[in-house]
Each structure stands twice: as structure tokens, then as C-alpha cells.
């Protein structure tokens, strides 16, 4: 109770409340603009949050992260254009409902399911927080090394059809993180005699290049699509309770969101895929899916909105980010010398609880804002691509230049911007390179710390937790290989 009151005290300051409101509303608007998306917005906001208190900065970023998918549902349902990448599945049933004159109902389902998924995951986290607080301190260097390695393996496995590319990019990210002065023998690695590389390749610069500048370049090189005229939905709030009549879809999808969110490297797409497939297969009307099934919308939106809160678990408990957005948040912790991990749960549990309470408030603020402003947000969704590209490029400047006022950083970010553009155009995943940089650094540090304490490599896996994680890694790789071979045999026999 004392911890709860202390965490409540943390979030009842004006600065946190303002960050909550700006983050939530900003996230909805950003999510509703197709082609922008929360990774870009968070990347740009990141340097600005370094001057804030950790709780304020993280609340602002969490606000954008937790609310963007709500906003992304609006163009997905009304225009058949997903606002964020994870709203793509919502178009599948949302747009057919709009075409049959049920746009307002579809949006109600989106908002209701998103709210349910968001709150469900936070409640799960709060319920399991005492367990996490007990388990987290059992993680030493070897366990964290194994957990980071598991994250890397899952990043590769989870990118279906892009496993080899993801593996390459994860390793490339590890390589980037290894450039510069290493601390064990104080020698330089891969600097090619360039002094600016001695301090290494800055993670934020790469993030801003890959997520923000690449998006600006992508928008600027795209064509402006004709404006889609949409009828503004009326009475969205009146049908909000309909989700309550679909408890099976809501609970199953949110549970998938929580589970997949906790596992590093997996994320929304897999959660959506599993929940949608299961809800469809167990539905009384599976033929409606893809043609305007309300349960399909609930499956998609509840699953993706349950992920953000769950994704905070590996970050807070172990200091291991599971995807790009939590990787960006990790840098906010580092800037303020707050080290997420087992000690955070022991010494600053009120801080962890404060973040959970913020996540609940973000969902409440977002829902209220959407109920009064959906008509306005529909207009925002129609900003032309190249116009958006110009505005985005001016915003990118702040994010990169404000870091160190360095022209080199800007040039490096621009190079990664072009690489990110190629990724986008070729439909290649961008997350592995970032996770490689973050997890690679964690793995190297923990590997060196562990090596000083062990006599043989076997000691990496002879403890209960590290051994269990190692077993999960082996099972995950073998299962993946089994299905890859099975898929390859099937495609050979069918000649596809």
C-alpha cells in the first residue's frame, strides 16, 4: 500500500500529467496519419526527453506508444489505409463494415477492444508485479546474457520469411555497437583511424536515421494519393459497450498480446496473427472474417494494444528491450543513470508501479479524446504524402542536431536514413539492427562479467534460470528448423 501511494504521488505532479495528455493526444494524431507512425515520433522526441525527469520523459514516450494504435484504426476502418503498420489487420474487417454503412460501429469496436486490451495487460502486469519482483533479483550476469541471447534468437525466428536477413541485421547491429573504444583493454575496434568513431556509433543517431529520416525520404519520394472522401462517423461512443458482449475474442486476444509482448523480439504482428487465426477458427461464423466480422476487429485491436504494457516487462525487470520502441526508451533510462533490471524492482518498485498507473491513464485519456475528436482526426489522416515528408524532415533535424550539434551525426543519420528507405521499399524488417545494437552491447558486457567468474563455458548454463533459458533457445531453434524443413518439403512437393 505504501508503494502504491508513493507511485501515486509520483504521477500527480503537473509535469507528469501534462506529459500524459500531450503523449496520449499526440500519439492518437500521429497514429492517425498514415506514413508517420509511433517509432518515428518517439525517435524525434527522444533527445527532448533527456532534459526531463525520467518519469516525465518515459510517460511522454509511453503516451505516444500506447495511444498511436488507437489513432491508426481510424484510417484503417474508414479509408482502408492503416495508420500504423499494426493496424493493417484491422482493415481486413473494418473497411468492409464501413462499406456496408457500419463505419461508426467498426470504430466503436476498435476503441472498445483497444481499451480492453490496454487495461487488461496493465492489470495482468500489476497482478504479476510481486512475482516479477521476486524473480528479477535471481537474474545475474549469466541469466541476463542468456535472456538477451534468447531475444536475439527470437528476433530471427519471429521474422517469418526474413529469418536470414534478420539474423544478418542483428549481427550487423552487434557489430555497430562494438565499434570504437572497448573498455577491457582500452583498444580501438574498427575505427579505420577516424577519431569520430572512437566514441562508437550512437544508437540514437541510428534510430533517428532508420525510423525518422528514412520515413521522411520515403514520403518525399512517394506520390501524393488522391484525397479519399469519407463520411464522418456519428455516434461512435454509443456502441462502445458492444465489446463486452464478445468476452471470448477480447480475453483471448488480449492474453496473446500480453504473452507475445513479454517475449523479446516477437511483438504485435505475431500476437495479432495468432489471436485472429484462433478467433476465426473457433467462431460460429468463420466465413464472415475478412468481410466485416466484428470479432475480427476485436481480435486485431485487443491483441495489438495489449502489447505495449507487456513489452515493458523485459525492459523493466531485466533491462532487455524486446522491440524498437522499448529499445528507444532504454536510452532515456541510461541518460538519467537509472539502470533498468533486477535492482529497479528491488529499490524503486514505486517507480515501476507509477509507470503502470501511467499506462492505465494513457488508455483512459486516449479513449475520452477519441470519443470527442474522431471527426477532426479524420481530416488529419488526409495530409498528402510529400507535404508530410517536408514537415517530417524539419522535425528530424531537431531530433538529430539537438543531440550534440554535430554535422557528423546528421550525415551518419542521413546514411542510415537511406538504408532505412531501402528496407522500407524492399519490405525488409528494420527492428533487428536496432535490437542487435542494444542487445549486442548488453551481451558483450554480461559475457565479459561472467567470464571473469567462471572456469568453464558450461557454467553459463548450469544454473536453474540460465539453464532453462538455454533449453528454451535450443527448443526454439529446433522447432523453427523443423517447420522450415517441413515448409520447404511442402513447397517442393506442390511445386510452389
Amino acid at each position, binding site marked *: 500500500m505504501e508503494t502504491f501511494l508513493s507511485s501515486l504521488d509520483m504521477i500527480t505532479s503537473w509535469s507528469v500529467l501534462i506529459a500524459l495528455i500531450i503523449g496520449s493526444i499526440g500519439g492518437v494524431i500521429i497514429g492517425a496519419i498514415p506514413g508517420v507512425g509511433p517509432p518515428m515520433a518517439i525517435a524525434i522526441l527522444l*533527445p*527532448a526527453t533527456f*532534459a526531463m525527469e525520467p518519469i516525465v520523459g518515459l510517460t511522454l514516450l509511453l503516451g505516444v506508444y500506447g495511444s498511436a494504435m488507437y489513432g491508426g484504426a481510424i484510417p484503417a476502418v474508414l*479509408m*482502408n*489505409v492503416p495508420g500504423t503498420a499494426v493496424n*493493417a*489487420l484491422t482493415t*481486413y474487417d473494418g*473497411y468492409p463494415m464501413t*462499406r456496408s454503412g457500419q463505419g461508426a460501429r467498426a470504430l466503436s469496436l476498435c476503441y472498445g477492444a483497444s481499451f480492453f486490451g490496454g487495461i487488461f495487460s496493465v492489470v495482468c502486469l500489476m497482478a504479476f508485479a510481486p512475482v516479477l519482483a521476486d524473480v528479477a533479483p535471481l537474474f545475474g550476469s549469466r541469466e541476463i546474457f542468456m535472456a538477451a541471447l534468447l531475444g536475439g534468437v527470437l528476433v530471427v525466428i519471429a521474422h*517469418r*520469411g*526474413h529469418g*536470414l*536477413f534478420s539474423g544478418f541485421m542483428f*549481427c*550487423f547491429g552487434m*557489430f555497430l555497437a*562494438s565499434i570504437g573504444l*572497448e573498455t577491457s*583493454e582500452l*583498444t*580501438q*575496434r*574498427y575505427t*579505420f583511424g577516424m577519431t569520430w568513431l572512437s566514441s562508437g556509433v550512437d544508437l540514437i543517431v541510428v534510430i533517428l536515421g532508420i525510423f525518422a529520416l528514412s520515413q*521522411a525520404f520515403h514520403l*518525399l*519520394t512517394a506520390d501524393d*494519393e*488522391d484525397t479519399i*472522401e469519407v463520411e464522418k462517423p456519428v455516434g461512435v461512443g454509443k456502441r462502445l459497450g458492444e465489446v463486452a458482449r464478445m468476452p471470448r475474442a477480447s480475453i483471448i486476444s488480449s492474453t496473446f498480446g500480453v504473452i507475445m509482448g513479454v517475449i523479446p523480439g516477437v511483438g504485435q*504482428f505475431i500476437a495479432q496473427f495468432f489471436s*485472429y487465426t484462433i478467433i476465426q477458427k473457433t467462431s460460429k461464423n468463420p466465413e464472415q472474417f475478412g468481410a466485416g466480422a466484428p470479432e475480427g476487429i476485436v481480435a486485431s485491436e485487443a491483441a495489438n494494444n495489449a502489447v505495449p504494457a507487456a513489452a515493458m516487462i523485459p525492459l523493466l525487470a531485466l533491462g532487455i528491450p524486446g522491440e524498437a520502441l522499448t529499445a528507444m526508451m532504454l536510452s532515456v533510462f541510461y541518460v538519467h543513470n537509472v539502470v533498468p533490471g533486477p535492482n529497479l524492482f528491488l529499490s524503486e518498485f514505486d517507480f515501476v508501479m507509477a509507470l503502470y498507473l501511467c499506462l492505465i491513464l494513457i488508455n483512459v485519456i486516449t479513449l475520452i479524446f477519441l470519443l470527442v475528436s474522431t471527426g477532426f482526426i479524420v481530416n488529419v489522416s488526409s495530409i498528402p504524402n510529400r*507535404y508530410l*515528408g*517536408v*514537415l517530417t*524532415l*524539419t*522535425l528530424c*533535424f*531537431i531530433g538529430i*542536431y*539537438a*543531440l550534440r*550539434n554535430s554535422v557528423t551525426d*546528421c*550525415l551518419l543519420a*542521413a546514411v542510415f536514413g*537511406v538504408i532505412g*528507405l*531501402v528496407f522500407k*521499399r*524492399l*519490405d*525488409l524488417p528494420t527492428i533487428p539492427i536496432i535490437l542487435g545494437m542494444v542487445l549486442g552491447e548488453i551481451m*558483450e558486457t554480461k559475457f565479459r562479467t561472467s*567470464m571473469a567468474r567462471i572456469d568453464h563455458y558450461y557454467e553459463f548454463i548450469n544454473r536453474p534460470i540460465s539453464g532453462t533459458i538455454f533449453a528454451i533457445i535450443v527448443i526454439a531453434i529446433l522447432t523453427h528448423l523443423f517447420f522450415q524443413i517441413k515448409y520447404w518439403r511442402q513447397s517442393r512437393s506442390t511445386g510452389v
Partner: protein
Amino acid sequence: MSDNSERKVELAELFIPKFHPAELVFAIALVVLSVFLFSQFEAQTRVIEGKELAGQPGFWSWISIVGMLLFGTPYLVTVILKARADNGRASVPQELLQWVVAVEYVLWFMAYVMLVPWLGYLLSTIAFSILLLFRVGYSKRNFFLWALIFDLVMIAIFKGFLRVNIPGGAIYEYLPPALRNFMISNF
């Protein structure tokens, strides 16, 4: 009217990645980069005599590059196979041209970066967004007006309110002292 209203989204389409033959160019570049980095290992890291590989300062770079080669080589092979199976509907030179076109916007961005220390954040941003809007083909007054409002609001929030670290322009030195301080602090 765009064709969005007629487009039927298939579930598989949402989860199975697409392939473009231009990926071959990218894959070759990645493997060449990996081989180059591997060849530079001894020159770019210090090797301590008598110490096992895991204890070498460059061990983590070595692990990363070996990983790049282990994933990159079969990746290149799969891309070659996919490119062979592709019916050649998508144009590789056209796709490569799109990558090159983006370089123009890199130059615009770098020009903006170089301009800020001279003209200051406010003038550079307005000049940059107006000129770039004109370049990408907007001519209606409303577009420029909204961009101007966006620039002013953005500068007020980031520089004035959030106090992000962007230095004043050299041009501000020519302003009267009171106005100069105000401009350095807020614009």
C-alpha cells in the same frame, strides 16, 4: 479517387513478405561488406598474443562479423533463387533509381543542417520548408501558410518550451543585445 475502396486485402498478404528483385543488389552489397570487415579484423582490432579468442578485445566484433557471414551468405543464395524464380515483372533499374532519388533529399537535409549555425534555427527552418515544398511541387498559398504555422509552433515548442540544444545563428550577432539574447534563447 484512389483505388483504395476497391482493394481487397488478403490475410496472407498482411503477414507474408513481398519480394523485389532489386533485393539482390542489396544482398550482394551486404555480403561484400561482411567479407571486407572480416578481412580487416587483424588490422582494425588489437590481437593479444597467448590469449584465447574469447578474451581478445576484438572478440565481439569477430563474433558479429562471423554472424554476418553465416547469415549473409545463405541470405544471398536465397535471394538469387528468388530472383531467378521471379518473372521479371518488377524493374530493377527503376527501383535503384528510387534509391538514388532519395540522395537529393539527403543533400537538402544536409544543406539545412549547414545553414542553421549561420542563419539560426528560425530563418533556416522557414527557408528550408518553403523551398522544399516548392521543390516537391506545391504551389497553393495554403500549403505554404500551414507549413509556416507548423514551423513556428514546432520552434516554439522545441526551442522555446522544451529548450532543446540548438545554438543561435551567427547572424544574431548583428542584432541589438536585448533582441539577440531573446533570439538565441527562443529561436
